[in-house]
């Protein structure tokens, strides 16, 4: 049972090594001729203005919030889907009630303009 996870573990180790290997190889084979213009910070060819930690809009948070709520919803959907064939019609009704309540929240968010990008 647990030995099935050996492959996932190997995959994770290879995935962790991969970026380091890439950077190491490019570090070894690249020519090193730094000059001040080349090592300058740039952004779309322009000199950056201010610091990188700019103030973000609250819209990012609202999107992440709605994502979290529906992520939790999907977690409850999964065991229901697995057990669907052994359950009767009442389970479908229960899940419809569950989804209906949450879709009400989505409609509220929509009406309030939380999904609009300003």
């Amino acid at each position, binding site marked *: 049972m647990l030995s099935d996870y050996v492959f996932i573990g190997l995959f994770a180790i290879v995935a962790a090594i991969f970026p380091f290997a890439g950077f190491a190889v490019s570090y070894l084979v690249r020519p090193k001729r730094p000059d001040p213009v080349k090592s300058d910070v740039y952004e779309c060819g322009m000199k950056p203005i201010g610091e990188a930690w700019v103030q973000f809009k*609250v819209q990012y948070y609202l999107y992440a919030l709605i994502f979290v709520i529906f992520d939790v919803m999907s977690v409850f959907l999964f065991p229901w889907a697995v057990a669907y064939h052994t359950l009767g019609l009442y389970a479908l009704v229960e899940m419809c009630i569950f989804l209906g309540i949450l879709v009400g929240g989505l409609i509220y968010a929509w009406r309030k303009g939380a999904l609009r990008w300003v």
Partner: protein
Amino acid sequence: MVLQAVFMLFSAMAVGAALAVVTNKNIFHSALFLVVALLGVAGLYVLLEAPFIAVVQVLIYVGAISTLILFAIMLTRRLMDASERQRNEQWFISAIVAVGLFIVLVLSVGQVHWPVVHTDVPENHLNRLGQDLMEHYVLPFEVTAVLLLAALVGAIVIARERTR
């Protein structure tokens, strides 16, 4: 033996990253260490033969809640610079309380004789979980939907900027 080593690895990952979360000066780095700690906990769930819970942990905590925390840090970013003092005056007392509680918990865990049963997890336990969720725990299940609805509406009302 291998199992014990893997357990040690995951718990070291979780506890070490958790220590970094509470002691790091930069709150943004703390949030990234929180992701590592949560992944370590997901590994512990795998060792406990609860793969569904492990996936849920990655999906919700690592994927969603940590994103939410990172966005909240970016939105309140003026306090992120490391020059700001991150500990309050009572941190030393807090540390003593936390260590004391840990010692008490470890001692009491050793005192109790747990009635451990040596059975395997049934193959179709996810099926069982779905059935129980739909039959025995229907009311908490539907109340969860109401809770999530209340959280969604409340958080939108609180976080939105007053336009108009």
